[in-house]
């Protein structure tokens, strides 16, 4: 058996997992912010009826990964983005290559999969701020960007932190989607969760234990931190966690 319980392959898998989670979280925060702003806007009289319905649909779509088994998502992604299909060719056309078997593909798939975990806390945070603050800023002459930067962003900071942490942790734990479209390529798509699975399949239980323990400790630490912040927080934070 191996001398160290963590082989270089395991360490590479952990590093890849970390890399994936970081990239995905960053990108998700960037695209989720305007999305969450749009979803949480809509105070009295500022929207027509149709917009409300559209928002409902969009929110349902975003929440799908919460309900769908990840393997379903992976499966459909595999089919939808096959090189012969429209979306697959589109991806090739814009230079992103194939969705399967690439780190880029994994990033895109993970973004879809972790989207609700980032959008939801942000929506909650923006809702908690309420509309009065942004109205006050507007009446003082602040434009949309200034209002966002000086009022919304600082007030929603706890929500951003929760969204980032949840998105990161969730991507670390991602398995089903990676399994379906990853192709198990070392350094590209062989993330820690798949590595653990393979260890178990190959009956290499000690290695599976080692890697699993690391992920378990990490997840627990993250959750502990989130909950400790929530129950310990006093002060003006208006962002309720989503959990």
């Amino acid at each position, binding site marked *: 058996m191996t001398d160290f319980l963590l082989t270089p392959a395991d360490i590479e898998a952990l590093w890849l997992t970390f890399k994936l989670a970081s990239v995905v979280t960053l990108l998700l925060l960037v695209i989720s912010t305007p999305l969450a702003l749009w979803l949480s806007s809509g105070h009295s009289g500022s929207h027509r009826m149709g917009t409300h319905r559209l928002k409902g649909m969009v929110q349902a779509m975003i929440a799908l990964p919460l309900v769908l088994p990840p393997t379903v998502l992976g499966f459909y992604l*595999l*089919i939808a983005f*096959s*090189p*012969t299909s429209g979306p*697959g060719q589109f991806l090739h056309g814009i230079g992103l290559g*194939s969705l*399967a*078997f690439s780190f880029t593909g994994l990033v895109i798939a993970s973004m879809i999969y972790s989207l609700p975990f980032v959008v939801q806390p942000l929506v909650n945070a923006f809702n908690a701020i309420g509309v009065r603050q942004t109205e006050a800023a507007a009446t003082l002459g602040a434009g949309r960007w200034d209002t966002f930067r000086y009022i919304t962003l600082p007030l929603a900071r706890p929500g951003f932190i929760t969204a980032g942490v949840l998105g990161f942790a969730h991507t670390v734990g991602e398995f089903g989607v990676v*399994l*379906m*479209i990853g*192709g*198990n*390529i070392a350094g590209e798509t062989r993330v820690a969760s798949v590595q653990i*699975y*393979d260890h*178990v*399949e*190959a*009956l290499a239980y000690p290695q599976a234990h080692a890697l699993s323990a690391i992920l378990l400790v990490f997840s627990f630490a993250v959750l502990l931190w989130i909950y400790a912040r929530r129950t310990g927080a006093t002060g003006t934070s208006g962002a309720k966690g989503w959990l």
Partner: protein
Amino acid sequence: MIRGPAAVIRFALTILCLLLPSLSNADLLRIAVASNFTHTLNTLLPEFENDTGHDVEISSASSGKLYAQILHGAPFDVFLSADTDKPQQLAEQFPKIESTLFTYATGRLVYWCPKECEYPLSGISTMPATLAIANPRLAPYGLAAKQTIEALKVSTPTLVTGENIGQAYRFIESGHAQAGFIALSQAVAARLPASQYWLVAEHHHAAIQQTGALTPRGLNNPAARTFIEYLRRPEIQAQITQQGYASLYD
């Protein structure tokens, strides 16, 4: 709504009657089968059940998972693994089943290229951009594929591994990989046109011996032994061979 003692008795009798079939004498046989053999197994079962009167339930999963489950007492009687390794490890844990180990099928590897493709195994340099195989670490077919690739000194830009040959198959079928190595039994089951795949010569790789065994539980189930013997019958083996395996009796 239960009204009165008469109704209670009626209710209890109904439940009892529903339980009766499982108290019958015909034995229930539970088989744990590696996913890649499931399809073939299903074609053999109706005849077995008819002939012997035994009921069969199968659970199909990856060999590794089945091994783990059996190790921890899952109620299977027969274990049909995709490789030799896992039944042997099971025998190490439960020496009593050692004598029941047997090869129930020998797999054949094929190279599958759905679109226009030059057969590379004769040494041509052009290889498809992405080649898919099963994970060599987990699946015997994957290991065989890897051995074949090494034996023929073939290089490919991207080698993609599926968790099992099922996934390797899907990668190729969906176009994500242009070609790859799958099991002959898959090609047969999917009725792939013969022009799309080539049989890999057996000397390029270690034999893919799909091995079965009784589980510790199965040692006490006569139906399990009946089944194993059934599998080894020449006419049954002929059926298995037809589905894409090498014949055991040459």
